[in-house]
């Protein structure tokens, strides 16, 4: 069995599972945020009206809560949702609630690794499609809707069809001007928006061994955009060191067997990856950045769980240092811990000196919710994950998805720019 099959077998109490088997798995961790939390509360209310008694959760210590989509509270309704979420965590005795304005908080998928909320070998579900991100920690991580999360909160388990696995092997290191974002955009361009539908995307090979944990998190994050159920990377010493630095040393790693089966194996040469951009209106609609150098931009957005981790900010700062932006540019670190490190490393000064505005961690404009959404016909280059119509604002705005290096280089020129072409 491969790593995903072994995790699902263990969690369902079976010695072996195969792709296509439907299993009820025991869940180790579950996450809700300020959109899926109130969604779950609405499901609970519906169940109570039908006569179900809901007095306690299956295990409040396995549940954690993030405030990310509409913080700072965008308006009265979102403020009320955050109050409802707070009341919910109090009522059910959930201790891990990362609150906006009270120390560490941030985007849920960023907290999952920054705070080591999920550990290797675990089954993790979250009320958000980008829950896949956390698979880079060697866990099975998948997104669910409100009804399913409500079911997990009460029963501690959920059904999954054991997915087929696609293995993506990266041979050799990515060059300095290339980031994991370029690779995953290239992969999505190759296999399409539903190229991994219902499947797992596993990443391996020498290039992945060389890649930082944060880079791997960018890969697994965007497996969602290829329709995948989950993305995963096998644990290694880099991951152990990363988790140890965050206080997590005890966990039960799972590794694939030597004869692990994959539906298909794809190979990529690190040296051949180009700075890649996804054009409107779909992540699969890719081009190399150099072919888009005539596209004039209104804005650059460096934020989200995909593109505002510490390394993403370091990459942007490398480009922005000593230069001035030509278009409106925003940097929103994905968590307070990252914000602090960016401050300590002097990155915030580089951003401010370049004319960039630095904002608080939030999903914000990535999902068109608030804080910097786009007007009709505005064109944005963004380190986020989706560019469907209306994703970041007006349905006739346009978003180009890119790496932090490309986004920062484009911010300097006002046009889509390969970082190598910056003077």
């Amino acid at each position, binding site marked *: 069995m491969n790593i995903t099959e072994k995790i699902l077998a263990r969690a369902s109490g079976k010695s072996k599972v195969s792709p296509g088997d439907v299993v009820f798995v025991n869940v180790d961790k579950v996450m809700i945020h300020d959109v899926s939390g109130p*969604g779950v509360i609405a499901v609970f209310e519906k*169940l109570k009206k039908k006569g*179900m008694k809901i007095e306690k959760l299956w295990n409040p210590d396995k549940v954690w809560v993030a405030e990310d989509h509409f913080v700072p509270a965008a308006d009265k309704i979102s403020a009320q949702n955050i109050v409802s979420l707070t009341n919910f965590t109090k009522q059910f005795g959930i201790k891990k609630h990362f609150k906006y304005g009270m120390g560490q908080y941030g985007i849920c998928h960023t907290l999952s690794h920054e705070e080591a909320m999920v550990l290797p070998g675990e089954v993790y579900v979250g009320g958000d499609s980008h829950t896949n991100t956390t698979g880079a920690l060697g866990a099975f991580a998948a*997104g669910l809707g*409100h009804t399913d999360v409500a079911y997990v909160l009460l029963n501690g388990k959920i059904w999954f*069809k054991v997915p087929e696995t696609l293995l993506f092997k990266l041979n050799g290191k990515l060059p300095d001007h290339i980031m994991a974002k370029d690779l995953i955009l290239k992969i999505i361009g190759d296999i399409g*928006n539903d190229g991994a539908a219902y499947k797992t995307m596993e990443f391996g090979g020498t290039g992945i061994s060389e890649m930082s944990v944060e880079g791997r998190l960018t890969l697994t994050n965007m497996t969602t955009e290829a329709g995948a159920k989950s993305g995963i990377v096998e644990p290694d010493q880099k991951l152990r060191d990363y988790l140890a630095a965050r206080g997590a040393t005890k966990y039960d790693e799972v590794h694939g067997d030597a004869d692990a089966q994959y539906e298909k194996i794809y190979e990529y040469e690190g040296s051949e990856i180009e700075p890649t951009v996804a054009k409107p209106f779909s992540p699969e609609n890719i081009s190399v950045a150099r072919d888009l150098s005539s596209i004039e931009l209104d804005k650059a957005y460096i934020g989200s769980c995909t593109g505002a981790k510490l390394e993403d900010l370091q990459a942007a700062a490398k480009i922005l240092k000593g230069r001035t932006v030509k278009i409106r540019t925003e940097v929103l670190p994905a968590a307070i811990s990252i914000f602090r490190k960016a401050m300590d490393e002097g990155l915030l000064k580089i951003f401010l000196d370049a004319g960039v505005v630095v904002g608080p961690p939030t999903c914000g404009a990535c*999902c068109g919710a608030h804080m910097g959404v786009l007007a009709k016909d505005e064109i944005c280059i963004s380190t986020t994950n989706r560019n469907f119509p209306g994703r970041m604002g007006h349905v006739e705005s346009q978003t180009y998805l890119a790496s932090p290096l490309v986004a920062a280089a484009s911010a300097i020129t006002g046009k889509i720019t390969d970082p190598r072409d910056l003077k």
Partner: protein
Amino acid sequence: MKGSVIKYERDNIDTDVILPGPYLKIHDYAELATHAMEGLDKDFHKRVKPGDFIVAGKNFGCGSSREHAPIALSYSGIKAVLALSFARIFYRNAVDGAFLLPIEIDESAYKDISDTDSLEVDVSKNEIKNLTKNKIYKMKPFPELIGKIIEAGGLFNYKP
């Protein structure tokens, strides 16, 4: 189930157009319905009638995990979406929350069914009758567990 067709001849109809991001803060199901399909078809909520079907291409409901998407369609009156394929979270939200039926159809049925056609869907026979064109198409049968959850009326009523 009988109803008429609202057809969108396109693939990858994502949850950002089915229920746009700014409305994620809303959890009143009837209010969500007034914004259904707003990112793609501003007239949808005026046009849709109880019992209607949406017909669409592949990867329907891709993107975000928002259960708002099947909720908004369901509370607009949509009883089933007939598509070439579905994104996984939309599919399980539709079934586990008992909001609507995600029915997979083949390319020939997709091409043949027109906007405003009247259909009759019989899940027990895996059959779709086009009453306007007097034709019968096969739907892909639901996998065993999915069929049982649908029969139970959603995941919370299903006893494993």
